[in-house]
């Protein structure tokens, strides 16, 4: 149940090839599919008002380099990596980032968690940012961008099994830090039990 329609119209190799030749319509197709994905990843690091702009910049950086991409199927993973680099650059610039995250981790996690009460989007995003990278990225693509598991696998290059693991473990951890669901009552698996680092070993 999200506010917007999940993305559709996954581009094919033909679209990538056409975009590389400068076809603007093909670029628009790539953009409409990948922009929500890039935006979701950026949100994990950058301020919300900056994420839109950085999403644009990721594509503006990718446009002239697309023709150098050897494997069209790797476009998603490549764009995701550009997004991570952009986010990292932004993070270095924002010297308050680590302090901010540290402060967030000290925030009492279980306020305003009455059942059926809407959750504060910023508070949920802030807690999502505290999860291990593989979990938070996969969950962001599922819950913010609205992709399904298979679509996440296709976009990121992770294996379906890895995506599944990251979704399940990430959701369990997110419940814990948010103080919602069964795990909030003390049943949440510990970081050790569910794995702190997430899984990226399944990258294809």
């Amino acid at each position, binding site marked *: 149940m999200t506010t917007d329609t999940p993305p559709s119209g996954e581009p094919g190799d033909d679209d990538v090839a056409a975009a590389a030749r400068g076809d603007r319509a093909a670029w628009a197709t790539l*953009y409409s599919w990948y922009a*929500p994905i890039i935006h979701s990843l950026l949100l994990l690091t950058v301020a919300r008002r900056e994420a839109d702009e950085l999403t644009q910049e990721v594509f503006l950086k990718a446009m002239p380099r697309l023709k150098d991409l050897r494997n069209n199927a790797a476009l998603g993973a490549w764009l995701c990596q550009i997004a991570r680099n952009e986010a990292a650059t932004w993070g270095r*610039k924002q010297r*308050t980032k680590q302090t901010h995250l540290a402060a967030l981790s000290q925030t009492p996690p279980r306020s305003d968690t009455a059942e*059926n009460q*809407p959750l504060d989007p910023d508070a949920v995003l802030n807690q999502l940012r505290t999860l291990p990278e593989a979990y938070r990225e996969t969950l962001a693509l599922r*819950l913010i961008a609205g992709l399904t598991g298979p679509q996440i696998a296709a976009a990121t290059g992770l294996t379906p099994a890895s995506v599944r693991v990251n979704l*399940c473990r990430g959701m369990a951890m997110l419940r814990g830090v948010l103080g919602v*669901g069964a795990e909030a009552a003390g049943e949440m698996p510990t970081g050790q039990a569910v794995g702190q680092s997430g899984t990226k070993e399944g990258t294809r």
Partner: protein
Amino acid sequence: MSTQLPPDDVNDVNKAISPEDEKYLWDGTGEPAADVRRVEAALGTMRYSGELRAPRRLHVPRRLMIAASLLLVIVTSYMLFGRGGPGGRVPGPTPPVVTVKPTWTVASTQGDVKVGEPRDLTPTVKLRDVTVGKDGRVTLRSGEGSTVQVESEARLEIAEAANQFPWVKLSSGNAFVQVAGGDKPIMVGLYGHAVSMQPGAAASFDAGAEKTVLTCKTGEAHISWPQQSTRVLGPAVCTIEPGRGPALPLPVAAPKEACGVIDALGDSLHFGMKDLKGGSMLLKGYLDNVTAADAPTLWNLLNRVPDELRRPVRDRLAQLIAPVKVDPELILKLDPAAMDAWWRASVEASQQN
């Protein structure tokens, strides 16, 4: 849209979450627990829905590059534009300069620029539309004090009035205004909509409902915005965004790293320094490294920092400027007369550096 779950190659997955939740997370089918839907509903509000467009803000080196390029623009003449009828495209790489009565002049155009025919807005005011395409750029000029460079994908109206100041109104896109001439130019970047600018040696403009007003003296500019006062000592670059107002001015001579810190401070201040601890650490790091050349920036910080952080800024600035016969407590209260005295001292300290 149900798809088969991938193999469970990690034993503890099914212990972390229910099968129903797992199925829903995988392909969106089935009925998950209520808290999964609440989390999804909250995060789903952040889903991206934008369209590809030119970047809204420029990074510092680009601003400085634009500032440098504007210095090369030569005043030629004055002109009048107005709306009316279909626009005519200015052809070729070296389009003719349009010259009319004293007002804004199109000093140069580049690429896709359309200039409309003049039309009467009122019996005494004529308007002309200018549309700058994706690869276009146009530079306007008025007198020797002001130039306006309008970036690609922008629309503006230029007016001449027989008995009042002519003006330029930016209805969309970005523009960069050089508001003080000589060897200490001040660049003001205008982002977004509804900005009108008046030409003249003492250039001024206002930004629509936000009533941003900029006035220029020799070598410096004062920007009044409802929430705060900003003063820019040339050569420097300052940007104004709708809803955000003037950013902390960036001295052209400042190192790139210092500009980055100033930008970060400005962002932190804009967002209210919610993370006061982090904001104060960033501020402390900046204060530890400033010199007298940074005194004008510290003055602008006084107007922006939360009350609880104003004292360390004031104390550091007091160390950089010559003693001023003003009660320092008045600075903490942002008393206009006291602030004006400290500004003058800050300018002197900066110029002696």
